[in-house]
Structure formats: C-alpha cells, structure tokens
C-alpha cells in the first residue's frame, strides 16, 4: 500500500475534498429549489422561523427530510455496490445481483397488490424481503465455502425466479399495477422525517464501515490466496462485507423503491475519477452517491414542476450518458 504522504495520495485527497464540495453543493441546491421558489435570505428565514407558516412547513417538513433521504439512499446504495464489486471481484456486481432488489420487489408487490390495506407495512416487509432473498442466494451459493462466481449465478437465478412472481402478480392484477409502478421505478416523493429516522443508522454504519474496511477490501481484491497468505480470514471478511452490503441496500430500497442505477454505476464513476484504492474509493462512492441522488432528485422535482418524475428515471437518463462520457475519457488515473 502506498503511504499516505505521497503525491498520488494528496491528489486523491484533493479529489475527495472536491467530491465533498460537490455533495455540499447538491445539498444546497436540493434544499433551495422546488415548487416553492424563494430568494436565498427568505429561504434561510423560512427554514428556521416557524412563524413564517406554510413556507417553513414546506421547507422543514417536506424538502429538508426528502433531501436527507436522497443523500442517505445514495450513500447506502453506492457503498453497497462498491462493497459487492470488490468482494465478488466483478464489475457487474450490484445490490440487485445478490437478490436485494428482487426480494424487496416481490415483498413490495405482494403488499401493494395482494394486501393494499397493509400499505403501511411496505417498508419493513420490503426490508425483510431484501434480506430474505439475499440469505437465500447466500445459502444456495454456499458449498464448502463461497466462490464469487457461484454467488453471482445463484443471485441471477433467484432474481429471475422472484422476478417471475412479480410479473405474474402484475399480470393477474392489472388494475392494481399503477400503485406498484412507483415502487418498481424508485422515487422519493413524500419521503419525510420518518424515513430519515429509518435510514440514518444504516448510512452511519455504512460510512463507518467504509472508512474502516478499505484496506481489507484492497487485500481481497488481490485474490483469495494472496489475501490468505497475508493473514486475512477471507471467508469471514467476505461474509461480513456481503451482510453489510445487503443491509445497506435493503434499507435504501425499502424506503426509495428499486433504484437500480446507483449501486452499479456510482462505484464505476467514482473509480474512474479516484482510482481503485478502496481507502479512497469507498468514501468517494458515498459522497458521489449522495451528491448524484440529491442532484437528480432536485431535477426530478423541478423539471416538470408541479409534476414529479420518479428519480429512478432521471438517474438513468442522466447518469448513463455521464458514465459513458467518463468511460470514453479514460481518465489518466486508471
């Protein structure tokens, strides 16, 4: 590992600072733009002065919690994707590959289609579904230890199986599909403080884990044998990271629906900017994920105001070309 004092490291720390500023800018943008348009000083007053009435209500009860949820969902999904790509040593690894999306998707669809009265259970049931499907994938892939390729194939098979149930339910209850669409595409409409309270422990755990596990992930990337020879408990570490990734993704998906793009693309985008070293890549992913989701959610709110576009659509429409652009640029750090 390179010592932290060399030039390349200083460069990466500069990039991290840049990403932190980007994140702060996205936060400021998200809090200041929306259906309610106020000049900045008035916005500041309205935010902290309850006597301002409906403007305070809008900023404090609707916009601020939604921005925080967007940031935390971005952090959780991108860290989850980054961890999985490292653990599996596979660039296509993402939360949906270990069954998180299909598990949460099926659980969500069952609630919204079969038990619409129990809609308030959507978040906990989707969370349980995500973890249940991940556990199933893990058990199916386990055979005298865990090989990444087996985990990926088991994940694809389980996702297809659960996906068939999702599609089947939507076919047999076509009049109820409308309520499912929002969850399947992913969106942040009407997310409030309750969702902030659900998410923040996971985002905090994810961020702490991200700051602590960079070195271990770097070792894991060298291959199982090399990592073992360097004294690492490979299987245990891998299990730990998969559990962490599943928890992060399950929390995010249960709140924001099936946002597919973040977990796969944000780690790649960040890698192109900051390089492969996970000590920098993980915090970079968290910052990039939060910034991207907050910025895209702002756009989702203001692009067709007062109509809202699900943020999942904006993410894919803007994120994919941006990713391709970075890919074509072939950043010199790689």
């Amino acid at each position, binding site marked *: 590992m390179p010592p932290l004092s060399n030039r390349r490291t200083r460069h990466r720390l500069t990039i991290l600072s840049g990403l932190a500023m980007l994140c702060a800018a996205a936060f400021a943008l998200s809090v200041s733009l929306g259906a*309610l348009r106020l000049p900045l000083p008035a916005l500041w007053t309205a935010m902290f002065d309850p006597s301002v009435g409906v403007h305070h209500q809008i900023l404090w*009860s609707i916009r601020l919690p939604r921005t925080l949820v967007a940031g935390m969902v971005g952090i959780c999904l991108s860290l989850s994707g980054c961890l999985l790509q490292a653990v599996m040593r596979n660039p296509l690894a993402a939360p949906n590959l270990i069954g998180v999306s299909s598990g949460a998707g099926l659980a969500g669809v069952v609630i919204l289609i079969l038990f*619409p009265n129990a809609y308030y259970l959507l978040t906990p049931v989707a969370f349980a579904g995500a973890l249940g499907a991940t556990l199933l994938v893990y058990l199916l892939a386990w055979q005298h230890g865990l090989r990444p390729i087996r985990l990926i194939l088991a994940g694809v098979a389980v996702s297809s199986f659960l996906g068939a149930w999702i599609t089947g339910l939507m076919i047999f209850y*076509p009049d109820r599909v409308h309520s499912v669409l929002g969850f399947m595409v992913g*969106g942040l409409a009407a997310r*409030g403080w309750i969702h902030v309270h659900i998410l923040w422990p996971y985002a905090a755990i994810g961020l702490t884990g991200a700051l602590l596990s960079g070195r271990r992930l770097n070792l894991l990337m060298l291959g199982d044998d090399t990592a073992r020879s360097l004294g690492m408990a490979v299987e245990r570490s891998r299990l730990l990271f998969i559990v962490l990734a599943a928890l992060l993704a399950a929390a995010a998906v249960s709140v924001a629906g099936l946002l597919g793009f973040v977990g796969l693309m944000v780690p790649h985008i960040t890698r192109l900017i900051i390089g492969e070293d996970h000590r920098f890549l993980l915090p970079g992913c968290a910052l990039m994920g939060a910034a991207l989701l907050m910025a895209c959610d702002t756009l989702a709110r203001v692009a067709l105001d007062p109509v809202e576009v699900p943020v999942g659509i904006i993410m894919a429409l803007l994120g994919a070309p941006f990713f391709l652009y970075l890919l*074509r640029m072939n950043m010199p750090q790689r």
Partner: protein
Amino acid sequence: MPRRPLPWLTPVFAAAFAATVCLVCDVTADTRNNEIHPNPPSLIVAQTTDTVTYRTPDGRRLQLSKHPRRTVVLLTSLLDLWYQAGGTAVGRCAGDLNVPFEARELPILGTFANPNIEKMIQLEPDLVIATDVGAFRAMVPLLEANGIAYLLVRYVNYTDYLALVELFSTINGNTTQGRRIVAGVSAQIDDFIAQIPPLPQPRVLIVFTSPNLISCELAESQTGEMVRMLGGVNIIDGSFFKSNSRVNFSLERIALLDPDIILINTMGDVDACKERLLHELAANSAWAALRAVRRGRVHYLPKSLFLYKPSAHYPRAFRYLATILYPEVFGSLPAINSSLEAADNATAF
C-alpha cells in the same frame, strides 16, 4: 494522453435530449380545453337499419352490424352497460363488480388484461367489446383474420358513459331506450347541480391509492370530472399530460395550494384503511398542516362508485360527492355514507 470521446457521442446525446424535450412538450400540451359537454358529442356518425358507423377513440370511422347475437364483453364495467342498453353476451372476463345478474354464469375468458383468445374464438362471437388499450388493440389483427367484428371504446368517465349508452343501445336497435336512460340519469344529476350554491367553490385534491405515492387524479378522470361538474375546483386542474387521468404531483405544490377537501380513491378495503390513514395524515407534519386535514375534510371514496364505473348508479355517485363538497346543502355525510355502503353490499356490483 487522454483520448477524446467519440466525436458522434455529443450529437447523439444532444439528439436524445432534444427528443426527450419534444416528448415532454407533447405530453404536457395544454389540455385546459376539456370542458364538460352538457350534451356529449355522439359517437354515432351514421346509421342504417342494419348498420352503425361510429367514431373510434383515435378518430377513425368504423362500421358495425346491428343486432349482434353472440357478443363477448372483455370488461365487466362495459358488460354492465351493454346489458343496460339491451344487449346480451356469450362470454365475459373475470371479475365480480358490475356484473349483471343475467351474466354471472357466462363462460369466463381470463382476466381483462390477459384474455384467452382461443377460448374466445371457440365461442364463435360475432362482436367483441373491449376498451381501446394496448392489450385489446393487439388482438385486432387476430379478430380481423377470423372475421369477428370488434368495438374498442373509451370508458373513463361520466361523459363517456352517456356516449356509450347511446352507441350500445343503437347497436342493439334500442335507440329510444338508450335516450330514455341518458335523459333519466342526466336529469337526476342536473338536479344536484342546480342545488349547488354559486360560491365559494371548494378546492379539491383527489389522491389515488395512498398519500405516500402522491398520484393525483386530473380533470379527465372519473372523480375529477364529477368534482368539476359539481362546481368544485380540482387544484391540479389545468396542468399537463393529455390522455392521462393521473399524475405524480409535488407535495410541496399541494402544501402551497392547500386544498379545502382531499378525496382518496383506493384499491384497498376502504373501512380497513380509513382510520389508519387519517391517523397517519394527522401525524405527518407536512399533511397535518393542510387545511383539509385540520378541518377533518379528508374522505375515502367508495370503490364501487368512484374507482370502478358506477354506470347506472352515476346519480348515486354524484349525490355522494355533492354531500362531501356541500354538506350544508346535501346533509351530513355519515348518514348518506352508511346508507350508500349498505346499498353497495346489497347490489354487489
């Protein structure tokens, strides 16, 4: 040396962006010109003793033979209307609501989204009736190849109901009966409208499914049209999206517009959802601050009257809504609510 992106990449993205903008402009074209017609335009273009030429939802003119003997109806709300207009059927799709008594034992041809075409053709129908949506449009070539006449219609709201009663009864050779039905229903609804106080107009938000999704109904939706006819103002009226009766709306904008009344259409069991939802609305500071929530004017709408098509029971639906909008004129809601729910259970349509 960093490579430049492919030279065609930028133009391709620009073109994709432009296409998206055009699409958005197209779907958000101004639809404020959706006045409710006191006498909706007829779907019938011409008729002879044996045929009817009608206008399709996309503006084409098609001819049908009158007096079909073996009709298949692939939507239960159309089935109800078809029987009301003097028709009979030999097959229908699955569903319990809006199925007339005489049609309950008919062969079931699958769900409305996924009808079994082989089973349908086995019944040798001479007319297939369905709504003009993708799944049914896809069936058209097959029906034409088998020489089966079809009638794809739009049935979204009350205006469509009046036009369809006229068309269906004309096809069945019962034009007079159709006119009588239309006149009877219209007269009852006109009576409610005549009792409405001129001002102030209640400002209404119609939410579909649950407040967490903020999917709101527009003027063209069934409930949206009824609110408008009864003198209410849909706070999302006049905004965007042609050919779309629902739209995902900004909660911030709702807070700014601050409706007087919130109506909720749900897929779930109304009674089971009601208490929890009202509790949640009061507990969520964003919703609790709304005038409608503070004043207890949040109402779940009965599914049989507002989510599904009430057809012959439109007057009841209007009466129910009028009571919500103008309790000072039409009496208190709970009394009407309980009698309506009891009637719903009795007729089970």
